[in-house]
């Protein structure tokens, strides 16, 4: 085997994964009406995927806001513009850091859990058993997780951004002594609800939520039924999600602005 053919296999393999995941999306979406019969399952997944990620998202959001305010304060103080700290924290978090960091954390916290759970179901033939009992595994297992991911990502992102603003306020106003009124009035003067909150926070996090959960569900669903296969699929979920988030972020930013 030459190195060239090995590289080509790797490339073809990656492309095949992307194509396969793309083909899996219509199957997932087509199963939405049927999965509504198992609506409790979607609620249960919202709890596991969304509500259980809340602590992680809140703590990380707080620290991201705090460190941003700290860094920006020192850079802006060179120009005598520390009053703009709140503005820059808000814009950076809403447009980029909020959706991207939330999605990366979400891939690590919820994506891996989804892949491992579905992968293990595949490896222990639970999915085949469901089919034998005339329960559609896509409608009962895959789609509720996908829906839960798509719904919870924007909500988690909003919580992340709110905590980041709180963290920025904590460091900027409480610690470093920027005037409270200046902090808020400069922020409200520069942040636009449509271009920053809707385009930045909501659209991006919705797209990231769909992509991350699609990758996670697809990886789990197509796992080779071995323990090694489950481990490999879980790793691949994180790697593929991270690349997809950052690449998609660039494209969305280019299109939305």
């Amino acid at each position, binding site marked *: 085997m030459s190195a060239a053919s090995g590289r080509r296999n790797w490339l073809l393999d990656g492309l095949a994964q992307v194509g396969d995941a793309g083909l899996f999306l219509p199957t997932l979406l087509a199963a939405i009406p049927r999965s509504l019969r198992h609506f409790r399952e979607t609620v*249960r997944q919202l709890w596991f995927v969304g509500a259980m990620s809340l602590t992680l998202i809140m703590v990380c959001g707080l620290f991201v806001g705090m460190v941003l305010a700290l860094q920006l304060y020192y850079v802006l103080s060179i120009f005598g*513009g520390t*009053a*703009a700290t709140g503005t820059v924290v808000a814009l950076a978090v809403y447009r980029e850091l909020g959706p991207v960091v939330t999605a990366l954390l979400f891939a690590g916290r919820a994506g891996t859990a989804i892949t491992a759970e579905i992968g293990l179901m595949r490896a222990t033939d639970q999915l085949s058993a469901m089919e034998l009992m005339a329960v559609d595994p896509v409608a009962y297992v895959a789609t509720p997780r996908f829906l839960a991911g798509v719904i919870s990502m924007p*909500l988690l992102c*909003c919580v992340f951004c709110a905590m980041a603003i709180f963290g920025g306020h904590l460091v900027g106003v409480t610690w470093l002594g920027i005037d409270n009124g200046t902090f808020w009035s400069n922020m409200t003067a520069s*942040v*636009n609800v449509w271009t920053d909150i809707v385009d930045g926070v909501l659209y991006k996090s919705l797209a990231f939520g769909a992509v991350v959960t699609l990758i996670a569900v697809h990886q789990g669903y197509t796992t080779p039924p071995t323990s090694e296969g489950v481990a490999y699929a879980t790793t691949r979920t994180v790697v593929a999600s991270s690349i997809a988030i950052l690449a998609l972020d660039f494209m969305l930013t280019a299109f939305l602005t």
Partner: protein
Amino acid sequence: MNPRRSFAAGTGLFILLGFAALVFLATQTTSVANNYQGDTYTVTADFMNVGQLKVGAPVKMAGVRIGSVTAITLDQKSLLAQVTMAIGKRFNAIPADSSAAVFTSGLLGDQYIAVKPGSGINPDDPTGPPLVLHDGSQFIQVQSALQLEDLIGKFLVDGSPAKK
């Protein structure tokens, strides 16, 4: 409470928290927070130059926000920038001969309209009740935005020793 119920309650709480965060972000940290709430009346002012003034910019008196800019258009006849402002109804005793100026908050901040109070004395009846701004009034005295380029130009032309 059975476990299924507690799942549902926790999930509901999570969704509520998410929406609460969204409402906070949208209303408290964006320009939505600056939109003046409550009844307003409209006044106008014609400026030679409004600089970087934007729709939604605050109108302040003595540094206190009393309203916001609702429209900026060019008057085709006078070729002046016509700025329309909505001022809160409760600020109903602003003297009619007050002046409006386009100022900048801080060195690099956004521009706003600063209203400087006049005397309000009625020239026809100096001892009578003062004249105040009302719906449809216009600021007679205005001061345009300072343009850095104009200042530099003035300094170069007027201030040069060679011009003696």
